[in-house]
């Protein structure tokens, strides 16, 4: 395709994307025009968001965002560390796999939200319980992807390492883990969005601040504007993190 052709195609894609956003805005306007008590208009929502930022009453919007973000940050990084270690152990040690895998397979299908009652009973309603719920949500996809990455490694790399004379440690660190790295990153990416879903769910049930808490409080007071603002923040932060993750992936996994 010529350079001009490519430019035209890009411009067309941008116009289509813009149209899709405009379509949502038009629908939003139509709904809020027909049912003003159910949905504020986009402009009213923006005004309300501005007000929440400039003149907050009680906990500010940014404090809610920061609370959710901190929980995700701590849980996600602990889950990454633990998940990669356990996933590698599953893939590498037959004894460990035989011992732990049945338990893991039994617990894996349980949705993270289903753990909330047990965790609240065990850890109370403090920070630990919310972090623990997010941890469970992020941990599972990382373990599964790390393990399946190791299992799906092309056996030719193992053969090549064996012939070169790599010992078991070198084989793991210099061949198996690098070969599984794209899978590990894919698991981490899934875990990131899962973390956000879990933190919101946890905050909806047990929290004093956070975006999930803000949504529930707004629902109770019938404040649709606040609910929409919280949802936009969740979506915006997730999209931003996903974008940053893709950029990071291109740097640390360029192959």
């Amino acid at each position, binding site marked *: 395709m010529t350079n001009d052709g490519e430019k035209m195609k890009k411009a067309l894609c941008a116009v289509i994307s813009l149209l899709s956003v405009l379509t949502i805005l038009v629908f939003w306007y139509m709904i809020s025009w027909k049912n003003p008590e159910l949905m504020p208009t986009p402009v009213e929502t923006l005004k309300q968001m501005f007000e929440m930022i400039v003149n907050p009453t009680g906990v500010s919007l940014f404090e809610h965002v920061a609370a959710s973000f901190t929980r995700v940050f701590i849980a996600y990084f602990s889950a990454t560390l633990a998940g990669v270690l356990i996933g590698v152990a599953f893939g590498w040690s037959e004894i460990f796999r035989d011992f732990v895998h049945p338990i893991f397979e039994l617990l894996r299908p349980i949705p993270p939200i289903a753990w909330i009652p047990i965790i609240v009973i065990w850890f109370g309603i403090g920070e630990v319980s919310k972090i623990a719920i997010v941890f469970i949500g992020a941990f599972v996809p990382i373990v599964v992807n790390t393990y399946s990455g190791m299992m799906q490694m092309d056996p030719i790399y193992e053969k090549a390492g064996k*012939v070169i004379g790599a*010992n078991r440690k070198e084989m793991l660190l210099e061949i198996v883990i*690098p*070969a599984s790295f794209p899978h590990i990153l894919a698991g981490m990416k899934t875990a990131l969005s899962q973390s956000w879903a879990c933190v919101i769910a946890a905050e909806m049930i047990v929290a004093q601040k956070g975006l999930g808490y803000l949504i529930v409080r707004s629902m109770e007071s019938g404040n649709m504007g606040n609910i929409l603002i919280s949802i936009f923040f969740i979506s915006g932060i997730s999209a931003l993190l996903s974008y940053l993750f893709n950029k990071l992936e291109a740097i640390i996994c360029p192959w």
Partner: protein
Amino acid sequence: MSEKAKVSAVGLTKKFDDLLVLDNISFDIAKGEFVCIVGPTGCGKTTFLNILSKIWPATSGELLIDGEKADPKKHNIAFAFQESSAFPWLTVEQNIRFGMEQKNLPKEIINERTEQMLELLELKEARNYFPRQISASMESRVVIGRSFALHPDLLLMDEPYAQLDIEFRYHLEDAVLKLSKMTGSTVIFVTHNIEEAVYLAERCIVLTNKPTTVKTIEKIDLPYPRDICSKEFTDIRDRITDYIKWW
């Protein structure tokens, strides 16, 4: 085993349960010799190489290097597989360095040999590329470079050019001959292409159908570079074809 032999296979036998695949194969190869192995399709050539490389254990028999049991940790054994085995997470240069770094060779030697391989295999400009960014022919050269950079006691090659077109094959075959002379490595090259075997080998080991044994060993005394259209070349090629023929 002859006294001059660098590599000796002594009664190599491989069974998968009751299926006898390799049956008591023995031969000697001198230091620096280039030997090709040919045989009918499915006769177990790849199995044979996997046993020689110690990827699979032999049911009985031994592979000896300098009279000692071959051990990948002790001896320099390299393998160029049929499928590309260039590590996708390493660049061209890192792939070539990889084997030498595993063997803990001194840094100066690693640098010197890496530059030599990049130069000889015309990979200098692609040194920082990843395997997915280069052509199949270049990827084959990366694996050849990684193998020869070790200056292996024994280099096993399993139809490494099977995926390439004829022009690249001859180009790479000349490169492999040059490298084998330069490094003094003993090479065992498996191929189903008899013309390729006659073009490369000093001796050609012809295998039988399963259970596989050595049918004959043909010495090829033609000077390099070989003329594939000469009468001597075609005579040898036809003779080896007759050994393999089952029709």
